[in-house]
């Protein structure tokens, strides 16, 4: 396995040279040649089932197209899952202050569409009222005015995830009487979204993240219905990605620019994490609430958190087995 990967990396590096040459050739490309290139993209198969050579060709094709479209050298990486790595995430909800820098950093890193028409954010931070029980309302039984109370109304909702909202616009964070609960793709071990996909364009990678081959997606949106965490977004039109803001370091299964009519979602920043870097949200978090690491390594931060802290997962009763854990000190 190691050998085959090494030889693959070798062929990939020689390929990036050839793709550079290809870029030069592109500058003088005729309309016909461009059309041929797009036809080739249209006819390509499902990425996971391609041979290594076909994968490299597909990436080189995309590099040429993106480089032309965004006016800068764009790379499309294809680094496969690393042996002995299973990516996991842990989030300290006690520390989250609701600043949403993670959501912004994610948009910039992952080339999401932005602007009024189509504003795609993969991370949503739910603001939840801490709520209260009040003495004035302690006798407001249900039904009111009758002697025997069936229920009470002395509470205001507290700690109910479904009462959270993610459009809050405060002057400063953290707000008094608010708790924050960031949500994104949970990278489930048993992902319901993958099960329902009619063309297997979304699938679990061996190192954990659930990814999408944007070129194979037919836009049926079954995965969006099936996701219990509302983690998936759809490109209702061509994404609005300004040239100057486009992040040129991309991965085929990760942050490369998407097209209209396909679904996208968090991939644990596959373009970064497979190169040994942290996801953008982890890097930017000012309070250190976000932790990322290798679940197979007992000494990784994430593994130690799971071992030592009280952790929980969202909607655990659905048996999706998220690799995204919440904890508090």
């Amino acid at each position, binding site marked *: 396995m190691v050998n085959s990967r090494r030889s693959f990396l070798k062929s990939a590096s020689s390929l990036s040279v050839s793709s550079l040459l290809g870029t030069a050739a592109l500058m003088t490309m005729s309309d016909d040649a461009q059309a041929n290139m797009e036809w080739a993209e249209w006819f390509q198969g499902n990425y996971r089932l391609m041979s290594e050579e076909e994968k490299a060709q597909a990436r080189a094709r995309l590099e040429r197209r993106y480089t032309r479209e965004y006016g800068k050298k764009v790379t499309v990486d294809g680094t496969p899952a690393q042996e002995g790595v299973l990516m996991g995430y842990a989030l300290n909800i006690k520390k989250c202050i609701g600043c949403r820098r993670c959501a912004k950093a994610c948009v910039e890193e992952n080339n999401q569409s932005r602007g009024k028409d189509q504003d795609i954010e993969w991370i949503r931070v739910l603001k939840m009222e801490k709520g209260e029980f009040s003495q004035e309302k302690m006798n407001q039984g249900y039904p009111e005015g009758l002697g025997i109370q069936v229920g009470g109304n002395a509470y205001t909702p507290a700690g109910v995830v479904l*009462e959270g909202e993610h459009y809050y616009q405060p002057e400063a964070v953290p707000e008094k009487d608010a708790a924050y609960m960031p949500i994104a793709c949970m990278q489930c071990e048993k992902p319901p979204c993958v*099960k*329902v996909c*009619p*063309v297997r364009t979304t699938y679990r990678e061996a190192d954990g993240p659930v990814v999408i081959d944007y070129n*194979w997606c037919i836009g049926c949106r079954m995965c969006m*219905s099936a996701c219990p965490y*509302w983690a*998936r977004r759809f490109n209702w039109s061509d994404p609005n990605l300004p040239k100057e803001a486009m992040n040129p370091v991309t991965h085929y299964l990760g942050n490369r620019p998407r097209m209209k*009519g396909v679904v996208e979602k968090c991939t644990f920043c596959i373009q970064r994490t497979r190169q040994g870097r942290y996801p953008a949200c982890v890097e930017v978090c000012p309070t250190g609430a976000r932790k990322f690491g290798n679940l197979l390594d007992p000494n990784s931060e994430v593994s130690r958190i799971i071992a030592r802290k009280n952790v929980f997962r969202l909607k655990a009763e659905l048996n999706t087995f998220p690799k995204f854990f919440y904890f508090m000190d």
Partner: protein
Amino acid sequence: MDKLKRFAVDYVTYVVKGSPAFYAWIAFLCILILGLLYGTYLHAADGLRYTGLTDQVHDGLYLANFVFLVGIAAGAVTIVFPAYVYRHKGLHAVAVLGEMLAISAVLMCILFIISHMGRPDRLWHMLPIIGIYNLPHSMLAWDTLVLVGYMLLNFAGGFYFLYMKYTGQPLNKKFYLPLIYVSIVWALSIHTVTAFLLNTMPSRPMWHHSMLPIRFILTAFAAGPSLIILIFLIVRTRTRLWVENSAIDLLATIITYCLGLSLFLTLSEVVTELYANTEHALGLQYLMFGMHGFTDLVPWFWGSLAASIAAFAILLKPSWRTNYRLLALACGLAFIGIWVEKGMGLLVPGFIPTPIGEFTQYLPTTLEIFVTLGNWAVGFLILTVLLKGAIGILLGDIAYVRLPQGKTTSDAAGELATPELT
């Protein structure tokens, strides 16, 4: 081969000829189809941005019509089943019309799915061999399989019957009867799997209950025959083909049972959900009473319920049920009531609130309405042509062997209408 060619030529020359009223109907449908073409062009050029769909409510009018039309396709079995299993004479004579309706309804389903898809240009990704067909995991893959299979079965059965009638040959029972019996069971499967498409997702608690498949089948067997009765009443007045009263009465009885049971299931759902009133009931609460000031769907729910109850009340009394003016009214009410219940009433509130508790509303845009009307128009165009051809053959107007002079076609219809199967 020569016979087959003659069949095709005779069939086509017959269906394109008609009265001014026929051409006016076709022209009307074509105008609606222009709206569909424009909408399809916009979808292809700019994506689905001109729809009212959002990341929160991402399935709307298109998928709702798809779900409803699968029911209409399945509903055709209410003709075929009594005709071939119980040898009901009145229905047996016109069973092929049910198959024509099934073909048109499935074609409409396919059109709505294409309008719904973000990338219809990549539909080939779903084709076996050149694409990937995610069996056995994906319910959508199963649904495609059963729907296409159902269409082919009805196409084969229906056109085999018509061709044999056309050439005056007896039916080969060994080929024909198994086809019919398989298509009867298959009809149940298409709507069951469509229900599984929705109710196998715990992320959407409003759909996630085992009652959905049977409720789908019951509403299908109410809405389907409602449309069929309306078609039969039109056929009786506009063509020379006579549909027996016994056929219409049996269908009306089927609608009565199925509509009554489906109303009972609605009641069961409301009590089950609202009594405990968990978070899982939020969708139903939103639908019935509105929540957080969002009340767009409330009139749809109560309107649909009122239409279904009114239809049921008319159908319940035999003397009203056999009054065909009242029956037509009941069928219209049941059809519309169920269309709303399965569409805006089931699909949309399934997405409200979102799995993380967000309430948003969905209203179809004008473009969505145009595309929807256009898809229905294509379906009715196909249905009109298929029914006209089938009726022409049943009447003997299209026949391989020309009838001798002096003998009228309606005489022949009387002879030919007695089927070869006994």
